[in-house]
């Protein structure tokens, strides 16, 4: 096994650029996933079949097909329809859309977990629907699911190198580019792999701690 520390040193500037891109994808992807997931979850509870069925079918479809293929779909098919985004933006949309179908399930479980008495109290107080949701149900539901949402952010972090396959220069993208120039794959890929563990492990410990505090 050959290990060249100077190659690690040469890779570092690119590596930090990659970290920045990965974090960008993660933050914006999470925001899309959190917002869109709530929309799916509420739509799946709609009393109208026309809303409930298509949304359930679409989210099931997205959740059960590979993110990688969805990214290719977005990256290659959207330009054919004259919608063009950069690789990073496409990646963010892909990650956000894919994980929104997971967060939808999380929200659903959270909403189902709100005791029936809370709903009845809202009816008894004749609160309007918007206020029932915003002031009573969602605050209780979301509090419970914060750790679960966090776990999906970690899962998204681990899926984020897929955006390198459509040309975004995240951590893995930078490592690939570096090894293509220098013919040294060992150091950059190992560094990236370790970086993932170094980010994901403390984050998962944090989520476990949150779970103990918020979910009782």
């Amino acid at each position, binding site marked *: 096994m050959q290990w060249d520390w100077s190659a690690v040193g040469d890779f570092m500037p690119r590596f930090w650029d990659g970290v920045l891109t990965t974090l960008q994808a993660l933050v914006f992807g999470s925001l899309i996933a959190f917002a869109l997931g709530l929309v799916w979850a509420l739509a799946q509870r709609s009393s109208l079949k026309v809303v409930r069925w298509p949304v359930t079918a679409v989210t099931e479809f997205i959740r059960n097909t590979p993110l*990688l*293929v969805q990214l290719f779909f977005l990256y290659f*098919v959207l330009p054919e329809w004259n919608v063009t985004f950069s690789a990073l933006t496409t990646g963010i949309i892909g990650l956000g859309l894919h994980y929104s179908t997971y967060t939808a399930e999380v929200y659903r479980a959270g909403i189902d977990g709100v005791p029936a008495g809370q709903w009845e109290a809202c009816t008894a107080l004749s609160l309007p629907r918007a206020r029932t949701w915003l002031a009573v149900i969602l605050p209780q539901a979301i509090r419970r699911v914060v750790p679960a949402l966090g776990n999906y952010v970690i899962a998204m972090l681990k899926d984020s190198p897929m955006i390198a396959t459509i040309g975004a220069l995240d951590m893995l993208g930078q490592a690939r580019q570096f090894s293509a120039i220098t013919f040294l794959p060992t150091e950059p890929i190992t560094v990236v792999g370790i970086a993932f563990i170094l980010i994901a492990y403390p984050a998962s410990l944090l989520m476990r701690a949150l779970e103990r505090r918020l979910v009782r």
Partner: protein
Amino acid sequence: MTELTGGLWELLFKGVWVTVQLTVFGAALGAFVAFVVGVARTNRLWVVRFLSGLYMEIFRGTSALVLMFWVFFVLPVAFGWQLVPMWAAVLALGLTYGAYGSEIVRGAIAAVPAAQHEAGIALSFSPWQRLVKITLPQAWPGMIPPANNLLIELLKGTALVSVLGVGDIAFGASLVRNALGDSAPVYTIILVMYFVLAFLITRGMRALERQAKAGLGQKPEKGAGVLRKLSGRQQSEVSRDLSSAGGA
């Protein structure tokens, strides 16, 4: 719009076969790893518990795609081990998803009532006999629903190998795309193919679950509506399975 010719369809169906193989072999290796690591995490010796926990955290902590790149590009250069691409892919998938699966095994073993374990000791079963004859048969039905979700994650994870040139569905699709110069039809087709495969896995696992529960004298849950049947995964498991989901 250009039409897909017979030859192009053949490319896609060859890809389906490779994806199925990857899923089956990856699941076999993953199940082996999951059982070994999951059981080791309940071991009496702290060294065994620590090492198996370390394995789980490392392989769950890193990204499957990065691990795959590592197996493909770093192993040959750094250690001189060049694996056949197909087996390198199976190795990376099995090790990663096995780490996720070990949590399922550990959780299901922990859910078996302690009295069962104590009864085994009282009847002076050996530790191996306790595991094989008492604990695992009772833990087994509880593992199936989360394992179903994990299998679907594995199926989705197999698409990663196309990046490294293994001829699975997604790889076939990129060839077809180049031949057609048109992406929408082929990518729609392969998304549907993946969905059908995921659906078949779910049906199979539900059948397995019914059989496993019947073996314990339990009745399966009833009342699945059409939408639930359509749904790829087992909804009631979502809240319990949250921490182990995703991560491809």
